[in-house]
């Protein structure tokens, strides 16, 4: 397990100097981390909507270098996991603004729809590791740091 984690960290840490041929490996590595997070935080069945992240977050490829986005497949819960790597690391304030807008939108939507799900959104966390921003909406969001800490050290 430690070896796998170490290999993943190496893949991600080396992303800035990676060649284009290595891109698929990085994506797989990030997927592994996301799957681990969703499993350990006990997410419901999630849909991978990474190729439509612009629909959920007002961002585009000009700002985002890489994104993984998962939402609850059935729409029954607000659980969400979003990961962003920016083209320009100095855009992090822009990213935070967009994530905050997403949070407000979800609060507004779920307030009248299923108010008992609101605490998940209110307690959502934005965590940064090696330039990767993880936005976690889950009832077990406090475990996210522990899981990510294992991968990023």
């Amino acid at each position, binding site marked *: 397990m430690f070896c796998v984690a170490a290999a993943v960290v190496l893949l991600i840490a080396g992303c800035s100097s990676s060649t284009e041929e290595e891109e698929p490996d990085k994506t797989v590595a990030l997927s592994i981390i996301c799957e681990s997070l969703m499993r350990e935080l006990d997410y419901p069945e999630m849909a991978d*909507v990474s190729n439509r992240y612009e*629909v959920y977050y007002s961002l585009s490829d000009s700002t985002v270098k890489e994104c993984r986005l998962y*939402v609850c497949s*059935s729409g029954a819960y607000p659980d969400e996991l979003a990961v962003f790597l920016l083209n320009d690391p100095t855009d992090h304030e822009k990213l935070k603004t967009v994530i905050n807008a997403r949070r407000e939108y979800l609060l507004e*939507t779920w307030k009248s*729809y299923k108010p008992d799900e609101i605490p998940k959104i209110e307690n959502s966390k934005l965590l940064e590791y090696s330039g990767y921003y993880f936005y976690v909406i889950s009832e077990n969001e406090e475990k996210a740091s522990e899981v990510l800490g294992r991968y990023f050290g």
Partner: protein
Amino acid sequence: MGKQLSAKGRQKRKQRITIWVLLIIIVAAVVVSATAILLKFGSDSGESGSVAQSPSSVPSSSLSSSAPQPAEFAAVPESDAVDIGYFDDAVFVGDSLTVGLGNYGILPAENIYADIGLNLDTILTKQCIQTTGGTVTVLDALKLKKPSKVYIMLGSNGIAWITPENLAEKYNAFLDKVNQELPDATIYVESILPVTAAKQAGDARYSNEAIVEYNELLFNLAKEKGVYYLDCHTAFKMADGTLNTEYAEQDGMHLKRTGYEVLLEFFKTHTVK
């Protein structure tokens, strides 16, 4: 000679009587036939009069060109399964239940015009559909895409607080707008799905009896508006009228992948030409 004349006179009188009798029979036959025809005509015009009352309550402008006829209105019956390509020019409008169709990859996400929590109070105002021209309302997105078929599943989110009359009024307004913008589209109104026994027991606002009543309203609304009614509800309920837990999410209201597979199969086997 006098006897001869008398015999001839009797013969002539006999002939006259015969002619009169024949004339009377002919006239009687004509009168009977005419009466029968008049009676038949009267009865036919009476029937058409009663039929005419039904469509007169439906504004002809609100009927799409492929509209079902009110007099023979029924839920779309089962038919041979269509190919998945049938849905290429279809758009699915709705709330989180419809969002799931795209999230599970059951149908292409670009054909799903739905949003979490969308309901009849917000369907005409909430800007929630991403298009090349920005984020717009469902109706504006429909105007841009101009699909040939529109599937609508709304109401689940409203049964907790919208009265049946209010639901009918708001649904009516939305259907009018869709009909107005897409007069040639085939429009399907989907029934509201049942909830599980646990959901019903845990939240009094969600009763399957009420859902059946709402669905009757939707059926009548579809009939009045000249659009098609899809009785998806029946495909999901168990003998006691509750949502089959095999298809249900833990919240007792939404669907798991297996539920969406059933829903797609239902769509494929309930279409109109």
